[in-house]
Structure formats: structure tokens, C-alpha cells
């Protein structure tokens, strides 16, 4: 046991001033206080962040109330602000991103956790971590100059030809739009799905796999029917984490989504997202109402990611703790 030499000093007794001086001179209390202040600064930042978003969006909140979330007009000139097109764009692009990134990320995680030798697995995971470190604006750069032309000239026409009967794939091919933004987002969030899913899969005890194999299951059957179900809560956690990333992602989306506040069923049409409208209009917003409407959008984004992140961490904690037998559940 570690015992602090001054765990119970006589300084607590009133009047024992020499001991008190010695204790302060020893510095433990001061060190404790200084580090506590640093930790408190973090809490203060979080509280202040919520407070500022809440107070500065007051004008828009009182003016529009809940109507803010269901109206489609965004007209700074006449002072009409409705968030629906942005919320829609944010959700649609994130949904496209998840649809593409989850199978890819989980599949890759299965390979890295179940099949690859440990050395290979950790170096490939490092490459995926590097992918997560690539700045968002770089993805945007490649999106604008590489993906958008490819989408316009080949992917969108091909999709129209094969799946054109769906309302999702109708309309002119601009290149920019929901689908392109979703694809860029998918590439950006795969590393998050991958690394967290891999951790979760690795936390599933070995006996589970061995038991399945001993019963005559193939490697795939043991993975898919035993290991993955055991890890599913944590994998959901990784998906929520990735979703939170996708919702708040700004630059890459701003550069390829088209920046047009319209709601359209087709994934080919240009749209807008919450983060993108903040990036484009915040520094130019004139008038308090305009600014507070934008800050209310920021508040919405904050709350969405806040809830998703909290949920994700809880789920991941539950699986890894149960899997490694650290905590009873």
C-alpha cells in the first residue's frame, strides 16, 4: 500500500500552527490545489460552452420557438430562419456515410482482429490511424477536384442507369450534392469504426472462439455467429462515435455538398448541412437575429453530438469491460 507520509497530520487540530506551516511548506496541498484548478478549468470550459451557446441563441429561440426546426425558409434578408434543410442535409449525408463506412470498417476490423498476425494487424491499424489524422480540408480538396468530376461523369450516370427507378437516384448529375458529401464522409469515418471495432473484438475472450471451433464451426462461422454478436454492443458504440464525427464534420462537407438550402429526395441534388452553413455564413452574419439563428444551429449540432458521444462511450465501456472481465455487469 502507498501511504502518504502526511495523510493524517496534526495540522487538522486547531492551534497546531507549526505542523500547519510544515505541511504547507511540504507543498502537497499546493500541488493538489494547482492541479485541481487545471481540472476545474476543463469543467469550466465545458459549462461556459453550453452557457454561451444557450444565451447567444436566445433571440432566435424566443422568436421562432420549435418552429425553427420545421420551417424550410432560410432568408437572412427578410429575417426568416428555418433549420430544416440543414438538419435534413446533415442527417442524409451522415446516413449515406454510415451505410458505406460501417460494412467497410467492421469488415476490416474483423480481418485485423481475427485473421491478421498481430504485427501486421498493428501496423495496418497504424495506417488507418494516420488516415484519421489527415486534415478534413485535405479530404475536401480531393473531393472538389477529384471526386466531384468522377461523380458527375461516371458514377452518377451509372447509378441512374441501374438504380434510376429509385427516387434517390434521379435528377441531373451535378457532381456535388448529398451523395458526394456522404462518400467523402464515409472515407473519413472508416478509421473510427475500424479502430474501435477492432478493440472491441479483441476484448472478446479467446475461449468463445475456441468453443465454437471445437464444435466444428468454420473460422467465419465462429467469427460471425459467436464473436461479432458478443461484441455487437461495442460495435454499435463505434458506429455512434463515427456518426457523431460525421454530423459535426465541416470542411470536407462544405466543399462538396453544394451549399444550397433545399430539401430534395434525390441524393444527386445539392444540399446544405448545419456545419457547412456555419462555416459559410457565420463570419458574414449581419444583425443579431441572423447570428443567433446560426448559433442555435451550433447548439443543435452540439446537443446531437453530445448525446451520441455519451451513448457511444457507455456502450463501448460496457462491452470492453464485460469482455475483459474487469467489471461485472
Amino acid at each position, binding site marked *: 500500500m502507498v*501511504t*502518504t*507520509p502526511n495523510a493524517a497530520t496534526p495540522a487538522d487540530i486547531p492551534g497546531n500552527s507549526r505542523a500547519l506551516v510544515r505541511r504547507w511548506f511540504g*507543498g*502537497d496541498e*499546493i*500541488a493538489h490545489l*494547482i*492541479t*485541481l*484548478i*487545471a*481540472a476545474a*478549468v*476543463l469543467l469550466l*470550459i*465545458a459549462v461556459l*460552452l453550453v452557457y*454561451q*451557446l444557450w444565451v*447567444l441563441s436566445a433571440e432566435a429561440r424566443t422568436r421562432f420557438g420549435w418552429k425553427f426546426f420545421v420551417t424550410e425558409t432560410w432568408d437572412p434578408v427578410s429575417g426568416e430562419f428555418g433549420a430544416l434543410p440543414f438538419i435534413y442535409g446533415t442527417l442524409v449525408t451522415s446516413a449515406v456515410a454510415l451505410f458505406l463506412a460501417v460494412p467497410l*470498417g467492421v*469488415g*476490416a476490423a*474483423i*480481418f*485485423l482482429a481475427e*485473421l491478421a498476425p498481430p504485427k501486421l494487424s498493428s501496423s*495496418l491499424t497504424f*495506417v*488507418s490511424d494516420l488516415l484519421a*489524422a*489527415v*486534415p*478534413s*480540408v*485535405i479530404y*475536401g*480538396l*480531393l473531393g*472538389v*477536384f477529384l471526386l466531384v468530376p468522377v461523380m458527375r461523369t461516371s458514377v452518377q450516370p451509372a447509378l441512374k442507369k441501374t438504380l434510376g427507378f429509385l427516387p434517390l437516384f434521379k435528377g441531373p448529375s451535378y457532381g456535388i450534392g448529398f451523395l458526394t458529401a456522404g462518400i467523402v464522409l464515409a472515407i473519413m469515418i472508416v478509421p473510427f469504426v475500424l479502430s474501435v471495432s477492432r478493440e472491441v473484438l479483441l476484448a472478446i475472450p479467446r475461449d468463445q472462439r475456441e468453443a465454437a471451433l471445437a464444435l466444428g464451426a*468454420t*473460422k*467465419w462461422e465462429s467469427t*460471425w455467429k459467436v464473436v461479432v454478436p458478443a461484441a455487437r454492443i461495442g460495435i454499435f458504440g463505434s458506429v455512434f462515435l463515427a456518426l457523431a464525427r460525421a*454530423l*459535426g464534420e*465541416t*470542411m470536407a462537407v462544405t*466543399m462538396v455538398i453544394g451549399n444550397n438550402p433545399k430539401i430534395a429526395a434525390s441524393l444527386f441534388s445539392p444540399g446544405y448541412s448545419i456545419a457547412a452553413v*456555419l*462555416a459559410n455564413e*457565420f*463570419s458574414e452574419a449581419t444583425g443579431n437575429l441572423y447570428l443567433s439563428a446560426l*448559433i442555435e444551429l*451550433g447548439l443543435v449540432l*452540439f446537443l446531437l*453530438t453530445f448525446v451520441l*458521444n455519451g451513448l457511444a462511450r457507455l456502450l463501448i465501456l460496457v462491452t470492453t469491460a464485460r469482455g475483459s472481465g474487469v467489471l461485472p455487469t
Partner: protein
Amino acid sequence: MSVRMIWRKSLNVAMLSLTGVCVLITVSVLFFILGYLVYNGGKDLSWNFFTRLPAPVGEVGGGMANAILGSLKLLLLAALFGVPVGLLGGVYLAEFGGRTIPFIVRYTADLLNGVPSIVIGIFAYALVVMPMHHFSTLAGGVALGIMVIPTVLRNTESFLTDVPRSLREGAFAMGANKWKMVATVVLPAASRGILTGVLLALARVAGETAPLLFTAFGNRFWSPGWDQPTSSLPVVIYTYATGPYEDWHRQAWAAGLVLLGMVLVTNILVRAFLTRGTAYERS
């Protein structure tokens, strides 16, 4: 072999290869991005790029010296604001905390880490730009500093808790009190890990664009001192890539290559540095 067995075996092979394909796709994206940037940006990198100011709008030529310096200044401020708080907070969590406060701090740090960077930008705008009534390097530094704190804090904590108990007990046995033990034994033992954490956090915010758009804003000239708007590499990439001029696009590629190079090199070096063998065994 029965038909069912053949089916199961081929399903096994098919699905397992499919997972391999998933890895291949993911990993190749990185090399593709890198290759494409080198191909597109490499030819426009010149001495001028690093030493000249941007040319007047519409004219060809010029460089990004002001953006590079601006980015460095912003990073310096971010480190100044973020690292002390993160470091000391991490020490608190690992060494001094009880039960409830560290739990709250830890959870808050994780949630703050997940807040979209553009929302941090709004916060820094409210905190610094609104009282000062104009955009500034300072505001950008605050925004990036806030983003550095949670990462440094959590990382410091995890490296400190990894320091073996025997080292602590040794220090106590020599008569050190707690802060002496932390300052002279535990922190040095974990210093390598803590340093790499700080570098990674800075590399991450070095590429952040969104929180700078309405804090540091942008500037086509040098930004003297700390209270003027400043240019920065990521914001210039964004402006140039979405701008109408061909020459801007070429410069955006070059700047993208420089930025990506900086971020990836830092990440790789840090990784090499960290795994080269540590003072103690890491699990």
C-alpha cells in the same frame, strides 16, 4: 464432402477474403491521397512558396509565407493555452483525484473531445472575438488551445497511471512527499509518452480549419502581433480550393501537400519515438 460442407467452406473463404478486401480498400485510400497530393502539389512547391506573400488577387505567383507563419503562431498559442491545463489536469486525475471529481472530469474531457470543431469556433468567437470586436490570432489560438486540452489531459493521465507502483514506493521510501514523488519520479518516467501526446494533439489541431474561419479569419498580408486577423495554412487551402482562379488551385495543392506532410511526419515520428523502447514496460 457433402454439398452443405462445401457451401460452408466456400462461404468461409469468400467472407474472410472479403474482410481482407475491406482492409485493402481502407489502407489504399491513404496511399492514394498521399500519392495524388505529391503528384499534384509537388510540382508547384518552390522556394517562393515558403518565402513570398500571396500575389494580389487574380495575379499569378506569390507564396504562402504569411500562412505558414500564421499557423505556427496559432500552434504556439494553442500549446501555451492548452498544454499546461491538460498536463496539470492529467496529473490531478492520475495522482491527486478521489473518485467522483475525476470521473466527472474524465467524462467531460471525452465529451469535449467529441464536440465538433466548428462549435468550438463559435465558442471562441463568443469568448474572444465578441469582446474584442474583431478577429485575431489570439482568438484562433484560444479555439485551438481548447481543442488541445482534452487530448493532452487524457493522454497524460493514462501514461501516469502506467508508471509502476514500485517506482512510487521507492520515492516514498526515500522520504519524498507526494508532490516531490510526482515531480521527480513519476513525471520523468512518463515524460516520453506525455510529450508524444502533446505533439499528436498539436498535429491534430494544425490541420483544423473550421474553428479558425471566424476566429483567426484570414489575411493576405503579414499579421503583426497577436491581435490582428491572421492567415493560416488550412484556411488558405479552403479559400484557394473554392476560389475561381486556376493559379489558386495549384497553390492549394502545394499547401495541401505541405500540411499533410507535416501532420503525417509528426505522427510517424512520434510513433517511432514511442515504440522504440520505454523506460518501463507498457502493457
